[in-house]
């Protein structure tokens, strides 16, 4: 299999705005765990967007899971997304759905029977210490609880790639540790490739894993 992510002179820009990412060239191999940092507004979230096809390329090339994101068609994009787990910076939970159903979302889309979905959702909610909140609705949760639900949802369907945008920004140290452990486990046990945007690389990870940094629209490899 080719690299999970291959970016070549990638350029990203919002319509009628200066390019946010001016040039990004890097690749991420299967099973890697990569941290991305950068100042506020430097384009980290924008870079992730391009990886799940929510941002058209302004220039250069980007391949995700072997797909050319510059020319990917609608149905192929949906197929790709079904195998990616995303934690959005603003969580993006479905307000009208219970916590459990929110976690089930990727499994429902994959077409699993109800009880399989439910069992898997319960397992993940237990992992993020929220099984007692499974009947609640997102607006009845605290900020950090919502963030952990988003985490559980991203892991539910055993994706080959996890894109996490500031997944511990609203978490205390203990909850953060829970989240990092889960990611590490997925990375080690299932060879899931993981890209995390964060302002605080946990110390125990900082030497061990790769670290990319965005500055002035350019991506640098720190180590």
């Amino acid at each position, binding site marked *: 299999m080719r690299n999970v992510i291959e970016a070549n002179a990638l350029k990203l820009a*919002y319509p009628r705005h200066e390019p946010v990412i001016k040039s990004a060239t890097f690749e991420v191999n299967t099973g890697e765990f990569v941290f991305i940092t950068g100042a506020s507004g430097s384009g980290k979230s924008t870079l992730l*967007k391009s990886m799940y096809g929510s941002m058209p390329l302004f220039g250069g090339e980007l391949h995700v899971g072997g797909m050319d994101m510059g020319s990917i068609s609608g149905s192929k*994009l*949906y197929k790709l997304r079904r195998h990616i787990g995303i934690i959005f910076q603003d969580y993006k939970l*479905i307000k009208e759905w219970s916590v459990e159903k929110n976690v089930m979302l990727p499994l429902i889309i994959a077409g699993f029977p109800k009880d399989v979905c439910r069992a898997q959702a319960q397992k993940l909610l237990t992992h993020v210490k929220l099984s007692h909140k499974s009947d609640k609705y997102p607006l009845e949760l605290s900020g950090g609880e919502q963030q952990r639900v988003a985490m559980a949802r991203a892991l539910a369907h055993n994706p080959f790639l996890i894109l996490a945008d500031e997944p511990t920004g609203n978490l205390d140290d203990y909850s953060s540790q829970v989240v990092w452990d889960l990611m590490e486990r997925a990375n080690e046990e299932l060879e899931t490739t993981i890209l995390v945007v964060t302002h605080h690389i946990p110390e125990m990870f900082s030497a061990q894993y790769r670290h990319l940094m965005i500055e002035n629209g350019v991506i640098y490899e720190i180590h």
Partner: protein
Amino acid sequence: MRSIRHHLALILPLFAILFCIEYLLVFDRITESYENRLKENYSLILVADRSVKLSDISHCDTLIEKTEPIDAENVLRRIKAGLNHESVEKIRSIMPLFISIKLRRYAGIERIERLKSELMSIAGVRDVHIFEKVHDRLYAMLLFMKISFTVFSMLIGAISLLLLMKQMTIWQFEHKERMQIMSLFGAPVWLRSGVLFRLAIVDALLALIFVVSALLYLVNDSSVRELLSAIGIEPEIILRLDDAAVLAGVSFAIATFSATWVVLRFKEEQ
């Protein structure tokens, strides 16, 4: 409770649209049958010398369907009781010829006036009586009603369409975020918009059932039947089978169109 209101928002405008369509269909039929009836009832009586030939009159205008001399006996019978035979004979001989004229179709007052002056120009014709005032007024009333109903229907149609659009906007508000998020996780269109279509189809069916029930009720209600027969309309003119088919088509078309519109308007946010 909330969901009932939301169903209503689609059902009521659909109902109104279907009702108007049916009303206009029925009204076309009423007008048509009335025109036929007016033709039958419309009578011109022509008073002429006995020398006038019926064929002259028949060929005078294409509008004329039939001419018939009126039996003067009727006129005389009433008064002859107290008169001697001779007097009656005398009256009969000098009495003018009465001719009844039947028209092919009802043609409005101006056309009739023209016909009248044409008839008058025939030598020997003394007078033409038109018994149409009230009939004409009835017809004018019918026309007025038809125009009024059309205005009302257009108004209802317009508000209903707007109501549908509003409902769609609300659907968008309500479903946009969910569809957005589902789409980010790769849900195909049918999965994320299935709810909408199910809703639309159910509502279309309900609206159809309500309209047909309402019309059936109207057809069978005795006071409605009385009223209709008073103005000379058979209640069976309301709701024919092919009407129901038209209504069903319109209902489902509008409902699925609405849902499709919402789905197509959906765009992923950046």
